[in-house]
């Protein structure tokens, strides 16, 4: 069960620079910590986050074990045409989550 909060404007003027903010529930386990039994807890992080606007990539980042749990990502994009922004998180243990937001450009 993935849990995501996205903050993006519903509408934007053509050419306007809009901020898109996304927060996701994820432990971001570093792979360096010992668990209660003394064994190392296996690494479980989000490795990659991408955002596409009507299929074209507008933002991408590689995540590392030093990033805190429940990572918050904020980025800017220029609104050129109405469409769907797809945010995608992929990571260890087959983690994959996706969220879509529609932005109407006037």
């Amino acid at each position, binding site marked *: 069960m993935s*849990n995501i909060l996205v903050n993006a404007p519903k509408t934007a003027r053509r050419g306007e620079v809009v901020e898109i903010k996304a*927060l996701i529930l994820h432990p971001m386990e570093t792979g360096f910590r010992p668990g209660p039994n003394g064994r190392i807890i296996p690494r479980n992080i989000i490795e990659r986050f991408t955002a596409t606007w009507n299929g074209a990539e507008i933002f991408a980042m590689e995540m590392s074990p030093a990033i805190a749990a429940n990572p918050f990502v904020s980025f800017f994009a220029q609104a050129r045409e109405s469409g769907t922004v797809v945010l995608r998180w992929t990571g260890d243990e087959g983690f994959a989550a996706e969220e879509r937001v529609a932005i109407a450009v006037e």
Partner: protein
Amino acid sequence: MTARLLAFGLALVFAASYAAAQAGADKRRSGYQDMGEALQKMQDDDTANPGMLFVQLGGQLWAKPAGAENKSCADCHGVAADSMKGVATRYPAIPQGADRPVDLEGRINMCRTENQKAERLPPENRDLLSLEAYVAHQSRGMPIAPPYGPVVDAFRAQGEGIYRRRQGQLNLSCAICHDDNAGKKLAGIVIPEAHPTGYPIYRLEWQALGSLKRRLRNCLVGIRAEAWSLDAPEYVALELYLMERAKGMKLETPAVRP
């Protein structure tokens, strides 16, 4: 004549300043006010507050059937925004059929075992915290309104006793830091007044949602005292007293704290 006017004028001044003093009498500060601006904005923005992830999760659990009865919270309580509004402001309280006060998470577990015929969720379990956050979130912005009665008052008095009792190797009581020295600094950090206004809180140090119990255990370890076992009644007693101290302050659940 002038003397009488002067007296009247003075009386007016006194009345005005008295009224002003009464209006500003509440000098209590929530931990929110002692945080930096960035953290305050983080808490205020529902899409940047990580606690809201757990509230959202709690909302999903609210509607999910559990236990042998295969009933969800929503099957009995309906829409949480109506049925759970204000509930968190009066907990810990004595639920019907119980002989002692329970905190909100204890109440959720009572509902699970008695009505859903499900297993108790262990302390600091993510589902339990999420449900608690979801229920408490329905009372956000409402003033804390503790219950009164002979039994609950006795537990509250016990809680105040714990609050004022010195304990641990450092021989400190809660009151020494949070009453006598609140607002001053401890290792560069402002000592808060210890008002439980936003529990369960998302604490950045924890990178997770945590209960008041967990926070109290932090303090107990800090003063080198032995933390009570997780199901100890001391936590509920202490929470009762803390809620009384914070009576009338507004709930912020889910609060963000450093």
